[in-house]
């Protein structure tokens, strides 16, 4: 245990040292040069605030609220976006019917939907989830569609001569697995966009809890050390989601693409 710990330090020495130096500079600049908590809270202040919200339990409720909003959005985007992308990629006529609608809606920035989110859902979790959903759905649709468009013809033909001739079977056994790398890439892009939308939605009052809400709330109170804590939290949680997804997906779904870059 101890040995492996030392080994980790040895292996990641440069990375760790760089972080430590950055923190030291931060602390020095904030404490000695700026000397103003409003303009730049020091590392020490931020750490203290961090423990304060752990003690009060706020960190847990807010993180969970944000994750709930995020899950609502991602779930809805999955359930609607993937089937839409599949239908558009497989049936030409469906693509012609749906594509114009998507092209009109897509350039609208997701945050522009916030007023409607509030009017439709009120100040609920669903409202925040809806904004996340709007941010996530287009990358998912487009990548699913692209993946389906690019299914090599020879796989489809090979499946047909092996007795797989129904559209539904071809989609299930050939097109979905073949398009999986593209679909997964779309989901990862969508998660990044969705995370940004989540924070913005919470900041603009679609919610009265959550990490994004807390940033705004503490800004009103001029508690910039808390603002910074929540900023860093957002970064870390986002990073964790992405990492978790990446390792899970690479291990389970995309084993066969080893050697290619996803």
């Amino acid at each position: 245990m101890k040995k492996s710990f030392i080994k980790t330090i040895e292996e990641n020495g440069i990375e760790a040292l760089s972080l430590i130096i950055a923190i030291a500079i931060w602390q020095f600049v904030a404490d000695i040069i700026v000397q103003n908590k409003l303009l730049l809270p020091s590392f020490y202040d931020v750490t203290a605030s961090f423990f304060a919200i752990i003690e009060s339990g706020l960190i847990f409720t807010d993180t969970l609220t944000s994750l709930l909003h995020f899950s609502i959005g991602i779930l809805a985007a999955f359930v609607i976006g993937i089937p839409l992308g599949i239908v558009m990629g497989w049936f030409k006529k469906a693509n012609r019917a749906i594509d114009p609608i998507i092209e009109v809606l897509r350039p609208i920035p997701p945050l522009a939907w916030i007023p409607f989110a509030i009017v439709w859902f009120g100040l609920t979790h669903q409202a925040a989830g809806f904004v996340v959903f709007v941010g996530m759905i287009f990358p998912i649709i487009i990548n699913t569609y692209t993946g389906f468009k690019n299914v090599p013809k020879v796989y489809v033909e090979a499946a047909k001569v092996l007795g797989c001739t129904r559209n539904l079977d071809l989609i299930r056994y050939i097109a979905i697995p073949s398009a999986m790398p593209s679909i997964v890439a779309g989901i990862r892009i969508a998660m990044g966009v969705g995370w940004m939308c989540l924070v913005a939605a919470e900041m603009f009052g679609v919610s009265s809890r959550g990490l994004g809400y807390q940033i705004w709330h503490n800004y009103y109170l001029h508690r910039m050390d808390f603002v910074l804590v929540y900023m860093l939290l957002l970064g870390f949680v986002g990073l964790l989601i992405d990492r978790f997804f990446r390792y899970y997906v690479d291990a389970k779904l995309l084993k066969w693409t080893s050697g290619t870059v996803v």
Partner: protein
Amino acid sequence: MGRVSIKNVSRIFKKENKSGTEALQNVSFDVEDGEFVCLLGPSGCGKTTLLRIIAGLETQTSGDITLNGVSITGPDPKRGMVFQQYSLFPWRTVIDNVTFGLEMQGIDKAESRRSVEKYIELVGLKQFKNSYPYELSGGMQQRAAIARALANEPEVLLMDEPFGALDAQTRNILQDELLRIWEQRHVTFIFVTHSVDEAVVLSDRIVVMTARPGKIKEIVEVDLPRPRSRTSPEVNRLRDRVLKLLQEERFKR
């Protein structure tokens, strides 16, 4: 039983405004049950098109193709096909590729795995049955593709230049193995190639086709005992004859 009968088959590829390209013109011949027939011709002569029509992946403009007297209207597991491009499903391991046809018939995974074991052994891939296609060489991938086609127990096996992308050595080895498989299994082979050597070594009969529009130029009987030496005088003489047939086509254009 796998008797294929091709009657007056023509195929015209229509372009939007112009008149179409005639790929096949009035092609007729029969393939007997258990026979090994090669379709040979210059590139663009429509031999692959004909094979794809037999597979049911394309349709003829006119004429009729029957298998054991029944007209062909679409793809069917009775007519297996091996493609020139690598066509193994990259997300499935070798054994899961080979069981694909059986799974489509509704046979459960464990049972189909058991029953395809012999085909994997037949093509010599026992050690690699749990490998993914990206881990295999080109020759091994084509062997797996042959096993996958055989697992459906087809009556006819259609091969579209399956060894075209392989190096000469691997090619020769796979030709010999293919003949061994053909002798062990009672399957009719229709094999498209542009290589005279390949046609001469493999087939009972060679259907030589003309340049576009594809017609039958001559059907050459290969009455040589197997195993054939690639360099024996008889084989050379035959090769010479077939090459001359093809040469005439070149000058015509």
